[in-house]
């Protein structure tokens, strides 16, 4: 097992730079998830680590070795592709054996490795089937099996679950997590799905437009987003963001004023973005809450809870409320109560979180 270090990694296609010098230190046995909107450079970054894309600038090392110019096969990484990349003319066992046979591993050893891996992945019965005769989930497992049999230093995953339907995705997500707990292999996992990122990652790397917005443990990013992008990306629905101004007592949002923890004093008059998570606002006044009047647009029942779509001035927002089996009582909602300790304040201009020393 080994760590992966990216320092000031740049990727340009011709004159178009798509990754703008990113730094990342993936530790041994760590499961790191690169997450970000489509087109932000996640795959490109992963493919540079795999050696499928040339690195335009910066340094990449795997297991402490500088590998910018090392061929993919000599980096000792294994990659799982979004479309599985299974060889249609080979059966499951042959697909899994491909990498080992290329490396001229002895037959007996290959057989043993495949039997073990198939056991782990529940593929033992399917070893003689062709990919065409497998379900999506099984194909995905074969793709992972092909990586696992090689015992690589680093596993790379590029959106491995995005071709599966929602239910299977949830199931496979749990399976990947279990697998990682068992194999304890260094893994870098790319996805655009923040739920996958939150559930799988030891650490999440939020990317946007070729840069890293924030790196941290899932709950750390959730609780303390470094900027409005991260705040708006993680969580479902993501954090509400409202334009406001800091005052002596807190923040003014349109006609309302809400209390904010911390020393606002130094920043009075500053234009800010006030962030409130949908699940943090409550319908009844509590300790240290302030009132935020809203105009309710729509109530979406989800079952045990409902989403309240509303606006306040020009800012649209979404709140979560318990249904208690009925949404009738939610249609009259005209205000929510915001606890001061859970309000986030971002600088309006830079989007960065303000440290109020709370």
């Amino acid at each position, binding site marked *: 097992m080994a760590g992966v270090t990216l320092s000031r990694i740049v990727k340009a296609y011709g004159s178009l730079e798509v990754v703008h010098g990113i730094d990342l230190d993936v530790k041994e046995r760590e499961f790191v998830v690169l997450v970000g909107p489509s087109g932000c450079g996640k795959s490109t970054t992963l493919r540079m680590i795999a050696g499928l894309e040339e690195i335009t600038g910066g340094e990449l090392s795997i297991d402490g070795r500088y590998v910018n110019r090392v061929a993919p096969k000599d980096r000792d990484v294994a990659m799982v592709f979004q479309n599985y*990349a299974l*060889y249609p003319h080979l059966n499951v066992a042959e697909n899994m054996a*491909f990498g080992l046979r*290329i490396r001229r591993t002895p037959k007996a050893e290959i057989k043993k490795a495949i039997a073990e891996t198939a056991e782990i992945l529940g593929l033992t019965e399917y070893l003689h089937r062709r990919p065409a005769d497998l379900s999506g989930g099984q194909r995905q497992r074969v793709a992972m099996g092909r990586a696992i049999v090689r015992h690589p230093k680093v596993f790379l995953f590029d959106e491995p679950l995005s071709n599966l339907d929602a239910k299977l995705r949830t199931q496979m997500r749990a399976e990947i997590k279990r697998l990682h707990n068992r194999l304890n292999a260094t893994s870098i996992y790319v996805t655009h799905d923040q739920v996958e990122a939150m559930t799988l990652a030891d650490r999440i790397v939020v990317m946007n437009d070729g840069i890293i917005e924030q790196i941290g443990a899932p709950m750390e990013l959730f609780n303390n987003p470094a900027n409005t992008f991260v705040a708006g990306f993680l969580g479902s629905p993501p954090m509400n963001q409202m334009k406001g101004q800091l005052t002596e007592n807190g923040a003014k949002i349109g006609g309302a004023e809400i209390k904010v923890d911390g020393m606002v004093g130094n920043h009075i008059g500053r234009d800010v973005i006030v962030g409130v998570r949908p699940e943090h606002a409550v319908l009844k006044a509590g300790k240290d809450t302030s009132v935020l009047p809203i105009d309710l647009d729509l109530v979406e029942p989800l079952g045990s809870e409902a989403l309240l779509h509303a606006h306040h001035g020009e800012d649209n927002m979404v709140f979560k409320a318990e249904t208690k089996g009925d949404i009738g009582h939610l249609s009259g909602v005209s205000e929510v109560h915001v606890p001061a300790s859970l309000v986030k304040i971002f600088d309006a201009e830079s989007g960065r979180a303000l440290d109020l020393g709370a």
Partner: protein
Amino acid sequence: MPKTMAKELSSEQVIEKPSEAIKNDALTRTIDHFKREWQIYLMLLPTIIWFVVFLYKPMYGLQIAFKDYSIFKGVANSPWVGFEHFETLFTNDQFLRAVQNTIEISALNLLFGFPAPIILALMFNEILHASYKRTAQTIVYLPHFISSVIIAGIVITAFSPSAGIVNTVMGWLGLDPIYFLTQPEWFRPIFVGTGIWQEAGFGSIVFLAAIAGVNPSLYESAVVDGANRWQMMWRITIPSIMPTILIMLIIRIGNIMEVSFELVILLYQPSTYSTADVVNTWVYRQGLQSGQYDLAAAAGLFNAVVAFVLVIVANTLSRRLSRTSLW
């Protein structure tokens, strides 16, 4: 909308006359289908007309293979003679020789001519420099667009004993000139070679298209697994285009009896008939030059039946062995 109306209509009728109602239902469905898809059938029409005019209508004349045909009596009025012409054919040394030549030349064509475009396509696929690749492809496609008459002219000139480049080069090496095109043993290599030169490049397009259709992440996955280009060619490219190769092979086997007739006519001469005369050229000489239309028709029919059987056999084998077939 019309669909539901048709359903309601038929369900009413079901109560009265069940069997007719079902028939009507099928009929309305067919009519609906044509109403919806008539443009597609319209587009199919020219092809059907072409087939009828050029392939099915002439089949009427095929009956002369079983008749003592005379131009004056016409196809319909000539008397039937059964399999007499076929008996004549199979006791005719020249015809039997033509059959044997056809099979032997086809076998050579298959052996050397069939792999040539595949190998070319694989080679093109390994060229990374785009403009070099395009130039090379254009050059090998070119002979396909040149008429066989000109191709034959070039070949005859190149192999001519007096001015030909081949004999000139041999002269530099101190070898005696060879009268290539008059010698039976040289006909087949020259013929097969010419065919490859003419068609291999163009034939490679099909395989290049098949290669282009291979999922690129198969190669990426293989690269990460440590495969080199040679291994990728053998373990990914070739297996991936195998269905295309098999389909092309079936078509090729179906055409075994169709040795490129015009090229033979253009390149052979009486002194090389012993290795060069194929069924089609023999039919041409008997039919058009000697006026034995009935015998020629019998030979042509024999050719077609053999070809038909070959296609079916090849297709069945391919379906059994590789789940790939034309139909």
